């Protein structure tokens, strides 16, 4: 069994919850059997884990919670239509290079450095090899000989002594249709090449978990899908929602609060059924938690007069067909 698997900690039953950490903004995460299996299989096979599911179902939070629970580094990049592979691996800062060249020519204090010194390490570089990224793939002696060298800033969520890294590539369905195919090689090989041909390779001892999320807004290339493990996060049931609220609002454990959790979960189910029937997007777990939080902070329950406004703002978010609002 690989090292990552032997040290990988899953939450203990019966709760099966990673408690999270309020100080660092990591919420509690209820780890279902499906999630636990998918994480273990991803570590066993070294394949990226593609997570799909409705918005607000905890796809992004899972990566953060996993990194926190394991004491690993966490690197996140939200993909957009402008994302390119070079943003994730390495890119030469041509504008800085040009600036330095002009200042040098004008007799300024800055010196023009070799091209490699202008590399900007991307998220995959930091994730695969956090030691070579600040040195831009060179030896320390080479760096020290450059007086104008500016070391890149290390991502704050990357731990110094972490045994592993969780890399989250969020919302891949927003990226250009070709980007998933561009990612195949770096993710398969845990390596990529710099513009000068230097290869950046993740050490075999590094526990690396690559999580990719999609909202399913568009299909991903078949070749990409065939190389990813798949986990579909389903919408939690009423009781599961209450459990999630229970762990999210641990400081409010009273029968009154439990009644609010249950009542909002019931309303959530009704709204979900209604929106599904109307062909609209049903609310997600995060929206349920928003509704609960609003109730707790405002001191109301779904029986209150103001509940309809809270429901509209947190769960429905779309005009009610029957009321025309």
């Amino acid at each position, binding site marked *: 069994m690989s090292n990552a*698997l032997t040290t990988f900690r899953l939450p203990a039953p019966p709760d099966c919850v990673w408690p999270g950490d309020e100080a660092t903004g990591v919420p509690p995460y209820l780890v279902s059997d499906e999630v636990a299996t998918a994480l273990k299989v991803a570590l066993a096979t070294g394949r990226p884990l593609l997570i799909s599911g409705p918005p607000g179902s905890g796809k992004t939070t899972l990566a953060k919670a996993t990194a926190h629970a394991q004491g690993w580094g966490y690197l996140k990049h939200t993909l957009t239509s402008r994302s390119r592979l070079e943003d994730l691996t390495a890119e030469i800062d041509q504008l800085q290079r040009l600036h330095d060249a002009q200042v040098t020519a004008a007799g300024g204090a800055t010196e023009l450095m070799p091209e490699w010194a202008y590399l900007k390490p991307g998220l995959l570089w930091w994730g695969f090899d956090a030691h070579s990224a600040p040195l831009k793939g060179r030896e320390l002696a080479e760096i020290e000989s450059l007086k104008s060298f500016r070391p890149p800033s290390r991502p704050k969520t990357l731990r110094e002594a972490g045994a592993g890294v969780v890399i989250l590539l969020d919302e891949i369905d927003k990226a250009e249709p070709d980007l998933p195919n561009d990612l195949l090689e770096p993710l398969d090989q845990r390596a990529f090449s710099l513009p000068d041909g230097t290869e950046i390779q993740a050490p075999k001892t590094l526990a690396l978990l690559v999580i990719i999320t999609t909202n399913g807004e*568009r299909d991903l290339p078949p070749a990409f899908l065939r190389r990813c493990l798949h986990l579909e996060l389903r919408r939690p049931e009423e009781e599961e929602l209450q459990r999630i609220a229970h762990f999210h609002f641990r400081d409010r454990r009273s029968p009154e609060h439990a009644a609010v959790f249950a009542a909002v979960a019931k309303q959530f189910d009704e709204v979900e059924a209604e929106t599904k029937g109307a062909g609209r997007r049903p609310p997600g777990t995060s929206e349920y938690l928003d509704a609960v939080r609003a109730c707790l902070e405002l001191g109301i329950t779904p029986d209150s007069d103001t509940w309809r406004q809270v429901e509209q703002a947190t769960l429905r978010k779309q005009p009610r067909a029957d009321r025309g609002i």
Partner: protein
Amino acid sequence: MASRRSEIGLGDLVQTLVKLPTGDQAELDRMARCLRFEAGALAVATPDYRPTLRPRPSPEPLPSPATNPAMPSAPEPPIPLPDEILRIDIAKLPGTWDAESIPILPPEIACRAPLELDAPRPPPVPRWPLFPPRTARGLLGAAVMRPAADGDPDLARLIQAIILKRPVRILPRLPRPSARSGCQLLLDFSDALAPWWEDLRALIGQFHALLGEAACPVYEFTGDPRDALHWTEAAGEEAWRAVPNQPLVLVTDFGLIRIPGGEPRPSLAIWCRFAEHCRRKGVPVVAITPLRRERCPHALGQAMALVHWNPTTRAADIKRLIDRQGRYPA
């Protein structure tokens, strides 16, 4: 760098089972699903399992049942059938024709095989899309991608600026194809195109798979394309309007296919006005048509990229029509 890993297969399955040994069937099902195998592909224990790779050893002589208590008992003898055969009465039902009185059918009907209402229907013939799934993604992508100025640095412009001693405040970049602007789909659902209706629906699915529904609204028309409508539950009917710089994919025969008694088809003048309208609004038009390019009006071929809706069409054909700078036929 080593070659790319292969797709997920049995190797991954074996690796998983070796590293994560489990005897729980539910856990095995979850593992199988995660690896995109069917749930139930893995079984905890199969009693009839036999290794297929190793040669089977020659069977040893079986011990007699008396010496082997684990052997199953002998099967019970079959139930004896009664000697007496049940009596069968065959009688003519009232109202049936006698063999002699059956009317003689006309020869053109008599020679036909009788209609078998209860006969099993043959399975439907699978439809093969006009743009095959293997090539559709690249092909449709080539049709809707527009150049976006966020590619590699444009060294030529950069060097020019340095030579002329112009300050470089924004790094000039080369264009790269991008699908971020989405596209509008304008589909001709007139009666004359009825044989292609299923293909039109398949094409909508292919575009939505590539760009997503939100980035690819579908408008339908039967006559003048400028009267095309898009229907949504929230907004109801919405008339088409040109969006500058957003590609427009038009699927039509340009009114060239006529059917007897069919609805009036738009004339060439209408299509030319439409093309001119799009040109003025800055809308690049790609027309996908079941007709060969040679059959389409020459005037339209100059105003829009005409793509033959045919399995032999390739992405390269479309890229040739829309050159690398994103220029459409003028």
